[in-house]
Every structure is written in C-alpha cells, then in structure tokens.
C-alpha cells in the first residue's frame, strides 16, 4: 500500500492579497514536505494537478513548479481530468510508488479559479468542459447541465429541493470549524430555498464557490518513510472510470454510472465488499447540493440513501459523516487542489489529526474520497485506510 506520508494545504478562498498560484503551490508543497519529515532531495517525482491553462495563464505548469520548489532534475508531469484532476494526480503518484518508478512522490494541485478571471469568464470556460461541440455550443452552463441531471434524479428518487437544501446547510455548517474553508456559513433551510435562482432547482446557496488555493501530499511506501510517519494513513484502493460525455446519451441522465464503476474498482483494490457498512467517512464531490446525494447513491454508501439523509445519517453525528470538511460547497473548490484536499481530509481523519471540532471521535477505519469532471463524466475514487488494517 501507498503511505500518505505528508499533507499540506493553503486556505481555499478568494485571494485579495495579491498572491498568485505559485505562492500557494509552494506553501502547500513545503508544508507537506515538513509534515512528511523529508527533505527536498528525497523527492524524485512531482505530479501536478490543474484543470486549465486558461485559468492560470501557464502552460506546462509542472516544470515551472518543479523549478519553484527547488526540485530541478525530478520527473515531473501534469495530470488533468476536469474536476477529477486532483484525484487523478493522486492516482498517478500512487502508481509511480507502487511500480517502483519513484520512492517519494509529491502530488501538488492548484487552481486560481477566483481571483484571476471574472466569474463570468470562468463560467464560460466551464461550459466547454462538457462536449464543447454539442452541449457546449448551446451556451449552456455547468449549473444548467447539473440542474438537468438533478431533475432526472429527483423524478426517479423522490428527492426534493428541501433534501438538497439540507446538504447546503450541513456542508456550510461543517465548514465553520474548518480554518481553511471558503464558505463557513450558519444558514437555514429557508435561506437556501429563498436564495436567488441560478438554474432550477439550483439556487445560489446550492452551488459550490469558485476558489483559489493549493494542496499537496507526499506519497511513499511505508518502509521508505521516516519511522515517525510509518503509522500514517494509506491509500488502499484507487479507481477511475468515464461515462458517456453527453447527458442525452446516458441510459439514465440522473445516475452517475461512471462514479459507480470507479468506486467498484477502488473498493475491489481495497478489498471492500460492503461499502455501505465498512466505510466510516466520505468526502464526495458536491459541486452542487444534489450532486452529493447522487454521489452517495452511485458510491453505494447506503442501502436507502434518501431515508438515511432525511434522518441525519450523513451528518457529523450520523452513521456515515459525509463532507465533514465542508466539501466543495463549504471548504471550497480550487479545481486542481480539490481532490488532493479530499485525500488530506480523509488521511488526517484516519490519523486523528483533523481540525478540532471536525475530528471524528471514533477514527474511521476506511474513508473514501470521490471526485469527477464534467457531470460525473471522468470519475476518480480513492479509498484510504488506517495503518493498523
């Protein structure tokens, strides 16, 4: 198994201090190196996650960051899969360690999604992350596509707008104890339902924010880690899968079939046979409130997800806490960093070193981190496990 020897991340928010993505990536990398108790010279590969050069105005960012980090000479590459970029980079790094191609891999994700461009420009660019030629050229936005998928899901599952709003409330409340979070908010169901309509059924408070930020982890085999870090969380399983890109070509446009396939691969690698009972924490891709329920369904995390959601089963005190970090809606979403931050949340929860107020009292044995690009088109799932398992 691959050890998550070190973790580091910046705050996720909209930067107003004039700093840039190279500053954030450097801060996250050096924090992860320090927490892994390793030196720069120990790193022999760098994997960088970033969704789009349009956001950063920097093609080939991996070579630039290798130079910034003082890692000249290491193998470096950039991994991209839309919203799944961060976790796909984690997978690439894990495969390097498992294959013996590298001993210590730094995986660094960043995105300047908030302060570099206007929100309108970022939204227009996001419209091309689906099938740009067909869906994209209608002028549709990510929110409208997610809304159509959600409508199909609602018709099939009987989930309603209040179910979605409860997720917005919970994730923003969780973020209140997360010092790195972009949107720590104490809001009510009514405030969500009364917030301005973006695309029906999604209102402003049902949407995740555009954020700036960076996150980094150091991966290695347990025996190659400093003795003090050998008890850290491990990556037990990784899985990725794609779905039909266009919603209209899917058998059920409201079901995340690619996510289900990715999860099954990750569970098989981790030896998980019953995710609905074995997993103790989930960080899922809540780009929109309803997408969290769609993810719980596809990941197979509950036998009856709607009843369990309505009875608080996915709350911090429930059977399976979901998005304890606040998720994308609360913690924020600097795209390339998002999946890496999810892995960090899972690893620190398993180790018992997560933020005060959010650390689960009963340490989860298994935790699952879930991301996707498009409307669950390119999906990537990672299973983490404690050292004693």
């Amino acid at each position, binding site marked *: 198994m691959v050890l998550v020897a070190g973790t580091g991340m910046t705050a996720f928010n909209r930067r107003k201090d004039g700093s840039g993505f190279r500053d954030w990536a450097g801060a996250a990398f050096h924090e992860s190196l320090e927490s892994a108790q390793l030196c720069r010279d120990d790193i022999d590969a760098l994997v960088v996650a970033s969704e789009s050069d349009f956001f950063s105005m920097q093609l080939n960012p991996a070579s630039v960051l290798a130079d910034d980090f003082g890692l000249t000479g290491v193998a470096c590459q950039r991994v991209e899969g839309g919203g799944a970029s961060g976790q796909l980079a984690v997978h690439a790094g894990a495969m390097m360690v498992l294959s013996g191609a590298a001993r210590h891999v730094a995986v660094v994700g960043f995105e300047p999604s908030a302060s570099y461009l206007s929100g309108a420009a970022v939204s227009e660019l996001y419209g091309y992350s689906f099938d740009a030629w*067909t869906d994209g050229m*209608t002028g549709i936005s990510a929110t409208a596509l997610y*809304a159509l998928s959600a*409508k*199909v899901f609602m018709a099939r599952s009987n989930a309603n707008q209040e179910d979605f709003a409860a997720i917005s409330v919970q994730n923003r409340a969780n973020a209140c104890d997360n010092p790195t979070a972009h949107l720590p908010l104490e809001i009510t169901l009514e405030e969500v339902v009364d917030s301005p309509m973006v695309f029906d059924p999604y209102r402003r408070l049902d949407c995740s924010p555009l954020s700036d930020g960076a996150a980094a982890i150091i991966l290695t085999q347990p025996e190659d880690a400093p003795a003090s870090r050998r008890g850290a969380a491990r990556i037990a399983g990784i899985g990725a899968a794609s779905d039909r890109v266009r919603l209209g070509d899917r058998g059920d446009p409201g079901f995340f079939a690619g996510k289900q396939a990715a999860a099954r691969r990750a569970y098989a690698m981790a030896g998980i046979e019953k995710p609905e009972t074995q997993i103790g924490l989930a960080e899922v891709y809540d780009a929109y409130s309803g997408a969290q329920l769609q993810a719980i369904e596809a990941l197979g995390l509950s036998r009856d997800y709607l009843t369990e959601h309505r009875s608080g089963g996915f709350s911090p005190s429930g059977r399976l806490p979901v998005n304890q970090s606040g998720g994308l809606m609360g913690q924020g979403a600097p795209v390339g960093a998002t999946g890496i931050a999810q892995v960090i949340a899972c690893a620190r929860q398993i180790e018992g070193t997560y933020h005060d107020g959010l650390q689960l009292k009963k340490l989860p044995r298994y935790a699952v981190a879930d991301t996707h690009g498009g409307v669950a088109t390119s999906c990537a799932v990672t299973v983490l496990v404690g050292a004693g398992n």
Partner: protein
Amino acid sequence: MKHRLTLDYTLGEGELAPYLDGLRRGTATARQCRQCDRVTFPPERMCSCQTGNNRVATFDWKALDGKAEITHRTDGAGGAFALARFAGADNLAVCRIIDPTVRGNQARLHAADGDLPGLAIEILGEAIETAR
C-alpha cells in the same frame, strides 16, 4: 499584473459537418448506424453496438422532421435549457430554448445563430405571464 488574451478559433467540423450544416439551416440531420439502425441526434461518433469488436461504426445521415418532446427543463437567469427527444432519435439532446417565456412539452428545431451554433428549439405553445 494585468494581461489580456483574445482568441478567435476556426474549428474543423470534420465528419460532423452535415449535422452542423443542418443546425445552421434549421433542419435536424441525424446519424443512423448501418449495423443496428440506432438513430442519434445529436450524432454519435461511435455506436455502442460495436463495443465487442475493433471495427469502426459506419453511419448514414438521416433527416428528421425536427419535432421534439421535452423530457426535462431548467430555467434560470441565463435562459432555459432542456433535455429533449427528437422524433425518430434514440438518444436525448441538450437544447437551448429560444423563448423561455413559452411553456409546453412539444417543440421544434430552430435554426442556430452565429454566436451559439449549438442545438436550439422553439416551443410549440403559448407564452405565459411570469413574475420575471
């Protein structure tokens, strides 16, 4: 530091040119698989009937009458969009609704305009009064 980038693309339409030509004229040009007869609008580049082999699917272009039934619709500040099934097609299409004030499930293809060359539909119904 301020920086401005302006891009002006010329995108190669390739094998989907007849579909895009049709949208510009307001006619629904679908693709039909020669092996299994599946009709797709918007067209697919590969047919799922070829999953178990390494052959490239072959297609004919097929004119549909352009009528569509909306299955799901979303309205927002940026307009209205729908998942709709065009008569004779086996898949659904994501479409822009050209007049969001009109309600109804029956629609027909509307010729694309220059800035938005994608699929657009007009609803065959009456405009309704809304609060917006």
